[in-house]
Structure formats: C-alpha cells, structure tokens
C-alpha cells in the first residue's frame, strides 16, 4: 500500500529551527505505526515548497519514511488552499497513492482546508479529524482502512474504502518524535511544477483574507478575581 503523508513547512521555532508541523507529526506517527506493525506500507513524505523548505522532509526520513519528495514551487507559503490542493494533487497523481494522510491544520494559517481541496482534485473520499488508524480487514472486500472519528456526539469506528484522503487530529497516539538527527538533504527528491499539467495552477492569495495586526496585548494580573474580571470585561 502506497501511503503519502503531506507535510508543510511551519514557521521556524524560537531557535530558528523548522520542525514538523504539529498535526503533521500526528499524521506521520499514524502511518509509521502501521509500518511498525508489519503492515505492507510504503511511506512517502510529500511537501510543496521551495528549496529551503526541506527540513520537515528530512525529519520524516529520519523518523522512518521510505521516501521524501518536494514539489518544487517558490512562494507557495502564501498560496490559498485551492492552489495548494491542486499542486499536491498533481504530485500525488504522479507518485501514485492508495492513502493520503495529512495533519488536520497547518501551523501557519491553521485553516484545515487543504486536505479537502486535495481530495476533491483527486476525486478521493475525504474524512477529517481521524484519531486512530489501522489497515482494514481484507476479507471485507477491497482495500480499506479503519479509523476512529468523532462527530454529532458520537465516537465512531468507520471502514473507509481506498483511495482516500484522511486528515489526522490529536488522539491517543503521541506525535512522531523524530530523533535530533535529520535525513540528508540530497535524499529529498524534487518534482518540478514546471510541466504542462500544472500550468493551470493559479495563486489566489485573496482567499486567505487581508492581514491585520492584533489590537491588543497581554494584561498581567495579580489575583484570580482580577483574572476573572479581565476575562469578562467587554
């Protein structure tokens, strides 16, 4: 089973390092746990971005991904989810996938809309907020996975026919904790966006909205009563 884990390049941390996105680490943990149980999965980490955005891919290689691929494209960090979904879907079609995993939300915009856009471009089923994942029973007919999701006041276990795009949220499994070392940058393959299939990509940054500076700071208080009063102040 070919599993592609879509990653993004989150903003650098306080030390200037770029790590895995928080939800991306959850998605990677899910698929690596499948591999650890001996399930026949081949894991490819995929990221759309520039040459300086490969750190998450190197982390994924160090954590156990079989392959890391960067979809070459500069300044995709400010692209909207329609564009990113189109770009990722183009790469996924080239690579081939039975299952696509993503984090629920990115660390920068935090919308959680790229997975649905990618699924739509691929024509795959999309299920969000997956907490647990395992390979489905082959006897049930066709390739499938079993997932745990919540919604409508219910916690449900679902069987999902493949191919599918699943976005992963926090659950009982901790995020992937790659070792301090990282994979070799030269092990990251590059797929060019500069081919005719991808000329339809249009960047529509206005879909993200106009940036505004927050108008307030942090108020420091010295008692619980003052905290409650500050919280409830109109």
């Amino acid at each position, binding site marked *: 089973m070919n599993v592609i884990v879509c990653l993004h390049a989150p*903003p650098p941390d306080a030390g200037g390092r770029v790590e895995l996105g*928080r939800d991306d680490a959850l998605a990677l943990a899910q698929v690596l746990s499948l591999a650890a149980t001996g399930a026949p999965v081949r894991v490819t980490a995929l990221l759309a971005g520039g040459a300086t955005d490969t750190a998450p891919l190197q982390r994924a290689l160090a954590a156990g991904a079989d392959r890391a691929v960067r979809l070459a494209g500069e300044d995709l960090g400010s692209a*909207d*989810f*329609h564009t990113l*979904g189109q770009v990722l879907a183009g790469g996924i079609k080239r690579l081939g996938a039975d299952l696509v995993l993503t984090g*629920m*939300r990115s660390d*920068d*915009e*935090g*919308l*959680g*809309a790229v997975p*649905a*856009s990618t699924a*739509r*471009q691929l024509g795959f*089923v*999309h*299920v*969000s*907020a997956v907490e647990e994942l395992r390979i489905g029973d082959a006897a049930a007919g066709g390739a499938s996975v*079993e997932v745990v999701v*919540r*919604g*409508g*006041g*219910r*916690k*449900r*276990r*679902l*069987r*999902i*026919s493949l191919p599918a795009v699943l976005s992963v*949220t*926090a*659950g009982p499994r901790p995020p992937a904790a790659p070792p301090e070392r990282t994979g070799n940058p030269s092990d990251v393959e590059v797929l060019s966006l500069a081919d005719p299939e991808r000329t339809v990509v249009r960047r529509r940054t*206005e*879909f993200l*909205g*106009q940036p*505004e*500076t*927050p108008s*307030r700071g*942090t*108020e*420091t*208080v010295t*008692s*619980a*009563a003052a*905290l*409650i*009063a*500050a*919280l409830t*102040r109109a």
Partner: protein
Amino acid sequence: MTAKSRAKLIQRSRAKPLPRSRGNPDPARRSLPNLLVPIDLRDGEPTLPSLFALSEGRRVAHVAGATVFAIVFTESRLPEAVAAQLGRAGADKVLLCEGAGLGAPPLDATHGAALYAAVERVPPLLVLFPAGGAGDELGPGLAARLGGAFAAVADLEVGEAAVSLADGVGRVFIRRWRGDHTGYRRIDPVELERPVVAVMPAGGPPADLGTGDVEIEVIECLTPPKAGVVELDSEADDQAAVALASVLVTVDPALGPDALAALAAAAPAGVTVVDPTAAPAGLAAAAPRLAIAVGARELRLTNTPRGRVAVVAPPGGAPPRPSADVLWPVPPSGGAFWTELAAGLGALAPGAASAAPPKVPSGGPAKGPTKGSSKGQPKKPAKGPAS
C-alpha cells in the same frame, strides 16, 4: 403541520446531483445575500453553538440585507417545536435536507452532496457552521466545491465597506486568527465575489433575535451510491462537551488531582473543566469564547479575535505563550492558588453577572475527563448508520 404550529411548509423539491465538473461555478450566482447555518442536532435538539450561530447570523442579517436559513439534515420530519426554536434564534427559513442516513453524524462522503444541494437551492453569501459541529468535516469540502473561502473559527464583524454598496450590502466581514496567532485575517465576501464558509465560536446563550414564525422548505436528498464509508461501531462521545464548550478551563495534570477536582466541583453550568491530556480531540475541535489554561502545559486552542484566553502560570512554570489575553503569574507563595480561582468561576457562567458573589468550592474528585454542563452534551446514543 397542525393548526397550533407556526412553522409552515412552503415547498418540497428534489435535490440535483452533484456536478461532475471540478471547475468553479459562476461567481455571480454565489453572491446572493443569504446566510446559511447548518444545524448540529443532538438527540433531536439543536446544540447551543448552533443557536448562537443563528443569532450571530440574525445580528448581521439586517446590515447585509440577508435572509437567514437554518439547514437541518434529517431522515424524517422536523418537530415543529424545534423549527420554532430555530426561528426564535434567528432563522427566517428552515431548509430540511431529508434522506436516508442523513440523521447520522455528518461526513463529507455521506452528507456533502446533501449540503451542496441546499447551497444550490439557496446560493449563499456566508455559510456559518456552529462550533463543535460538522464545520471541520463539511466546511472545507463545501468551500472547495464552491470555489469559495474558508475560515476555521471566525467572528462576524459589521463595518464599512471599502467600496460603497447599495443598501449596505456587503458590510459584513469575517475575521479570524492566523493559526500561529501572529495576526488576524479579514475576508470581505462581497469583495471576494465568492461565498465564505466559516465556523463560528461557541458563544453564550442565543439572544432570541428572531420569532417562532418560520417557513420550512424540504429538499429530498438521495444517499450517494458509493459513499465509501461504513460505520462499524459507535458509542457516545465522552469529549463532546469539551468540543461544544463556550467557557473552557483546562487544568494541567502536573498540578495534581486536587486542582482538577476543586475547579471541576466549583464549575457552574455552562463552564467545562477538563484535563487537556484526557480530551485531545475535543480540545482540537473546541472554539470557546472564554478559556483559562491553568498550569504550565501549553494550550493549543482555536478561538476567534473576539474570544479571550487567560493563562494561570504556576510558580516556576515556563513562560506562557504570548497570545494570551490575560496572564496571572502566581507568586511562589501562591499555594493552592486554584481554590482562589475556583471561587470566581461562577462569574464565568453564561448569563452570569460579572459581579457574581464568589463561593467556596466543596472539593471532591472529578468523574471522567470533564465536568460542567452543556445543552449539546449527548445523553443517549444517537441512531443511524454512517452510510
């Protein structure tokens, strides 16, 4: 409908199938000033965040010259009392999407086509999902189909449009935090010329800005022939109250069980107290208007610019995240500082006066991961398969 009912069935129609094309639809059809609110039903009743989303829609509807539609997925008819409740919260009309399996918790695979049918019937300016509902599941897919924008947890704002518009149409904006809380994003649906799909926060009690007189329109929806999803088993969601909470208090388990027990025992109705390690999925889905993070554990919450977050930093704890609105750094002599906080929780109850008298918590262990109450909290298993 009986003679007593003020809910009136005005039309019954059949849904069109989903378009095969992946191209974006004609934007001119998408700019009508309709506000759509998909309702989250639990045990047949709308959740409080659903009613709040309706009341928010009602609040801005007169500015936008808009009509507010409540969308309800169901396998059967909607009780008149529920329709009237939706009307009082702010709905002008109820769109009832009827079809086999639509009473189950929504998934894009099983409910996406029905939602799109409703949107085809009533082209929206805004689609407002309630907090803790199906917004994360259905919202992005709908925005992708419409070629519109998506805002995960946002406020509705009323303001001056950059370009004057007839009758004030379009002076409604969507404002959200960036995911990293470094700034806001503001979307003008009219300037965008595309619909905006957004998830509302869990606000306080609805203001009942509407009336019980509401029209009902039924759309007969067919179940997708190949949904690709089968429900294997189902149980009540023990984290549902967290996802629906409008006032949320998280207590770092590193503080010990006494802190959680004291705060949980003191929590009034409408205030949910939770160990964040026990309800990660519920927290990821939550969008409270007020939140207090007690302890050094970093709280990753999705809220809106109008929402407020406080951090209680215990002695010796790590510096709190900069996006907190209020910070109480407890001094080393603070002792069991949570008892002081517990005494003030009553003032956070939805509808409570800000000067509510403090009370002394009685203590006692918390049962399960959460304590508190929410109208949307499930009481018994819902019926219906996933597909």
